[in-house]
């Protein structure tokens, strides 16, 4: 009986190995298979003792070969490991790592989203003779060993909302948070709260969480991972992967295949390699702090030693965070950083923090992310210039303080006193004059003041010339030079006439006069027609998009984009004015690699935000179009999601005004982070805003979506954006926004 069981186990192990090697030919696997087959053929004839001997031999062989095979794993195998139903899941961890736990808001499929699991748990530690239960909030995706209702750990927007809710609870209860990332990616539906918008909200809030967050990544699939992944210590399981996109997705883009076609497995494997998705890769690049070694060929629920290690590691990581921010560090911090893993429970660290510590925590978190990906872009400026610009920014901070904080307060007080005085005098004068006014004769002949009547019959403001209306726009699209007619997509529904290109792209600003459909225009249109003429000054133009992973073939594509646009990245940072109000703006434009965001674009965003903060200027992110994170940079791109969001948060908390304006098509990562986190998001009419395009949605959800699924008006109806603007009125609306909304620290207020 016992032997039978062991044989079944061996068969399972073999099948698992075959699974994760994806059908690849391998001599070791063949050997294991042969030995197992040999046993079953000889089993009947063998005596019980002999059988046990044979099984033990095979078991030894398996253990040996598994270790050997482990070293042969390629990145794609890691992907198969984490996706395998046998992989450890969050429930296993809760059972084995924590001493006690209560699941919150879920009982298998009865949950708002069974793929997001929340639990209050505690870890029991010893302080001297006392036993202390240290509570934590555990949040993570549950794949449930293939349970269908878990949706493979692909979390719906409301699942992420639940995660955020309990992070806030943890903050209120002042307990640390442990997050476990087990997701292939977020479920890309737009239903409220919306995949992208909710992830953005999570990132924004996590950026400011006043309790430590420790995260452990097993399967870090893009935006879904970021939704709970922003943390103070980021650890990764050694057989996990953490990537901007699934290898299949990357391969599909790479090969440019159409819907429904299949990509060859070799290309997928190749992409998995190119994307640098393994734990070792991410450690090398600096996107995780530590790699937790797993048993050979990946951790499965029976690897009890693994859970023990995991327990030590999360305790130690949490200790470290607390010690790092405590005002009273002493010796323990030193010890904590030096001690070997495994004896973390030998020393007690209290998991509590005061306000000052929480401030330090948040600041350290900001700094941690600010330092990431700093080598992933190219900085073309000579070093002297870099130093000078840093010095200049310090000067600006000082100037702004004196100008807007110090001086303004005093001028305001003076002005207020003068105003009060004037109002008093007026009232007195009014009272004194009252009897005089009453005596005026009502029947006196009416005489019109000749100076005033001239106003009725003569040209007013003659200095402006007779013709008031200006002609057209100051920037005119080159598309307006073509002599051709253009058909409006609304023609079928609204009967729009064909429009002449010079009218449409010139005077009409790319707007169909009949139905109001907005044709896409170049980003230069907004640059030229929204900001005050001559007010645009661009900077950071030397920050250049690079190819940090030496992704094959990408260098050429980048060169082509640079040549086509004459710019070095997909982001333009400018200072500009709108009716005299100075502002900082960054423009993400679609002509450069689809407006994708990589390390260079993220860096430019962060610098522009810092500039706006120092100068007390409002900030406008004009998203002419973005296809998402630049996949060829993998994590260097993906990390811009939390990284830039933290910078946005810092700017907003400093009292700024962060306005996002979407034009044409904006999707994926950027929308799900530093754009979507803005409380003031507007869209130009006919633009599309969303998380994933229709093709990806069909692939992941199996549902066909209506053609207008991502249209701005639907985004507005779902509560994702705050308004839709006509392109011709962007300037007017922006002026209105600058005057009516925003934080306390805008220079012109």
């Amino acid at each position, binding site marked *: 009986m016992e032997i039978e069981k062991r044989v079944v186990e061996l068969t399972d192990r073999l099948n698992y190995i075959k699974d994760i090697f994806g059908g690849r030919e391998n001599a070791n696997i063949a050997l294991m298979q042969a030995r197992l087959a040999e046993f079953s053929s000889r089993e009947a004839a063998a005596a019980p003792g002999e059988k046990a001997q044979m099984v033990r031999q095979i078991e030894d062989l398996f253990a040996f070969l598994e270790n050997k095979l482990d070293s042969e794993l390629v990145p794609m195998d890691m992907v198969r490991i984490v996706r395998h139903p046998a992989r450890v899941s969050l429930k296993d961890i809760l059972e084995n790592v924590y001493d006690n736990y209560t699941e919150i808001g879920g009982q298998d499929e009865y949950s708002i989203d069974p793929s997001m699991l929340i639990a209050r748990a505690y870890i029991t530690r010893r302080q001297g003779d006392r036993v202390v239960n240290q509570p934590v909030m555990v949040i993570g995706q549950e794949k449930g060993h293939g349970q269908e209702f878990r949706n493979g750990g692909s979390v719906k927007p409301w699942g992420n909302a639940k995660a955020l809710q309990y992070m806030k609870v943890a903050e209120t209860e002042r307990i640390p948070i442990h997050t476990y990332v087990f997701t292939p990616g977020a479920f890309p539906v737009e239903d409220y709260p919306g995949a992208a918008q909710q992830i953005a909200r999570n990132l924004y809030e996590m950026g400011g969480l006043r309790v430590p967050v420790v995260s452990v990544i097993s399967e870090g699939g893009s935006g879904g991972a970021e939704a709970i992944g922003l943390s103070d210590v980021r650890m990764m399981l050694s057989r996990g992967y953490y990537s901007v996109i699934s290898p299949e997705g990357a391969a599909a883009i790479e090969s440019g295949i159409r819907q429904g076609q299949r990509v060859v497995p070799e290309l997928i494997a190749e992409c998995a390699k190119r994307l640098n998705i393994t734990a070792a890769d991410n450690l090398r690049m600096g996107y995780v702090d530590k790699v937790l070694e797993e048993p050979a060929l990946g951790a499965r629920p029976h690897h009890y030693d693994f859970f023990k290690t995991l327990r030590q590691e999360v305790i130690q990581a949490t200790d470290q965070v607390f010690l790092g921010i405590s005002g009273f560090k002493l010796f323990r911090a030193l010890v904590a950083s030096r001690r070997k893993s495994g004896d973390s429970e030998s020393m007690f660290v209290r998991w509590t923090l005061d306000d000052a510590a929480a401030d330090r925590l948040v600041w350290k978190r900001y700094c941690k992310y600010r330092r990431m990906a700093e080598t992933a872009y190219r900085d073309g400026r000579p070093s002297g210039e870099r130093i000078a610009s840093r010095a200049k920014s310090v000067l600006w901070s000082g100037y702004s303080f004196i100008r807007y904080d110090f001086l303004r307060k005093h001028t305001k007080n003076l002005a207020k006193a003068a105003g009060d005085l004037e109002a008093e005098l007026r009232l007195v004068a009014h009272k004194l004059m009252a009897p005089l006014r009453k005596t005026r004769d009502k029947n006196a002949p009416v005489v019109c003041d000749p100076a005033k009547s001239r106003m009725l019959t003569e*040209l007013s403001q003659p200095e402006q010339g*007779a013709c008031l209306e200006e002609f057209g726009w100051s920037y005119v699209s080159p598309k307006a030079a073509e002599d051709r007619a253009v058909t409006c997509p609304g023609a079928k529904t609204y009967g729009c006439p064909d429009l002449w290109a010079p009218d449409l792209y010139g005077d009409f600003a790319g707007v169909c006069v009949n139905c109001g459909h907005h044709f896409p225009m170049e980003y230069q249109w907004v640059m030229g027609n929204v900001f005050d003429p001559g007010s645009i000054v661009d900077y950071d133009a030397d920050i250049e998009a690079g190819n940090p992973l030496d992704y094959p073939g990408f260098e050429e594509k980048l060169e082509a984009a640079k040549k086509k646009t004459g710019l070095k990245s997909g982001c333009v940072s400018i200072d500009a004015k709108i009716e005299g109000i100075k502002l900082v703006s960054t423009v993400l434009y679609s002509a450069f690699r689809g407006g994708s965001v990589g390390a260079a674009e993220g860096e430019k965003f962060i610098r522009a935000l810092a500039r706006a903060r120092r100068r007390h200027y409002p900030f406008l992110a004009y998203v002419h179009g973005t296809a998402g994170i630049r996949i060829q940079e993998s994590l260097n791109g993906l990390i811009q999601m939390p990284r830039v969001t933290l910078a946005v948060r810092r700017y907003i908390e400093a009292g700024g005004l962060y306005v996002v304006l979407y034009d044409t098509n904006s999707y994926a990562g950027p929308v799900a982070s530093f754009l979507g986190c803005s409380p003031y998001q507007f869209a130009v009419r006919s633009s599309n805003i969303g998380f994933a395009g229709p093709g990806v949605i069909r692939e992941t959800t199996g549902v066909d979506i209506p053609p207008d699924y991502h249209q701005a008006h639907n985004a507005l109806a779902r509560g994702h954006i705050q308004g839709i603007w006509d392109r011709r009125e962007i300037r007017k609306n922006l002026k209105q926004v600058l005057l009516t909304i925003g934080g306390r620290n805008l220079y012109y207020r």
Partner: protein
Amino acid sequence: MSTKKHKVLVANRGEIAIRIIQACVSLGLDFVCVYTRADEASGHLALARSLGGPNAAYRVSSYHDANEILAVADHAGATAVHPGYGFFAEDFRFARRVAERERSLIFIGPSWRIIRSLGDKINTKRLARSLSIPTVPGSDRPVYDELEAEEIAETLFAFQAEQGISNSVVLVKASAGGGGMGIEEIYDIEQFKTVYRRIRNYAKRQFHDEGVLIEQRIFDFNHLEVQIVADRTGTGIVHFGTRNCTIQSTGRQKRVEIAPGFRPQEVDYAFDAEKLMEDIVGYSLAMAREVGYDNVGTWEWIVSPTGQPFLMEVNTRIQVENGVSAAISRVRGQGGVNIIAEQIRLGLGEPMGYDQSNITFDGVGIEYRIIAEDPANRFTPWVGRIDQFLAPTLPYASLHTHIPMDEPYEIPTEYDPNLALAIVWGKDLAEAKKRGVDYLDELTLSGADGTGTELKSNVRFLRDKTSTILQF
């Protein structure tokens, strides 16, 4: 004219299309027409085919689609486009496209920049004021400031009171509006604030522009206009007198037009009508010269009962009533004048060839617009089949119509139910009025619609109104 023989595309239908075709033929020019499925029975198509052969007309999907017009122009090898009135006549974009496309054509009308600047009423008013030409008292640009608006309204009431106007009314209207929307009257300055805010908010909602215009409302006025004709050089510029278009339908649509605008020889006016006509002609010419006007156009005026003129707007096109001016005008050495032919001739670049001293006026002309409509019921259009249409042939009268006289004709629902223009001439007002009434009495018009209801027309209305012609 240049050595190249021009071919004019007639981008219109009905009566005006017919007159353009006739003018082209009289000038020795080629022409090409367009028509729609609904207009297959129209006289303009029959005439085009009979004068120009089977290839002289193209079926298009719509008269409103510039792409259709230009595609046909290219295929037919047209060198110029005549827009007639309505449709593209005052569309500066069409004029610009015609002139600036790769295969450019001549737009028979003023150049597009002129159409654009005079097509805007506020611009027109400011232009007029810059030349000290009288305009309706009030603001000449959109007002955005409430205090400023109130001051203008207040002054307007005082201004009217000073002039002895007892029932002062001030109009507050959305500057981006039109067609009677976003316009209100106030009778007292106390009402102003409420009305102003209502209009401003309406304008903001409706047109995304808060600009408001404030103007005096003028009552009981006569509607006069001055016919200007200029060549492309901008130096050859003349007028063909004035017209009076005061008789209108309830919807402010002209129904009867008379040339000249006043007749002091036979009618008593409370002011010097002769001088007034001279004044408005002078003003109109001055403004036309100032802007470099380069084709036919009409300056529209309103004249208050006390004889004050105010410029209302400029129509940068040939007008329906051009024929009535022609009826009383003669050019020395040339005889009668056809203003449409002149428009084409000058539009193609020929110089004027004569000046104002060569133009003389004689007698009175009346034009009646005969329309299938019900004057008793807010001039509701009538649509159906016309069985019989007979008009007297007289030396002093002419009839312009696209309706075939020899067979029944179904009025298309797609277009206005204008049937014909009848122009009569008399040596003086009395004779013209008598001839007009007689002419209308002799006109036979009958038909029925699908339900058997008999044809409704405004002939009786026109006849009754004749007695009030040219009087205040």
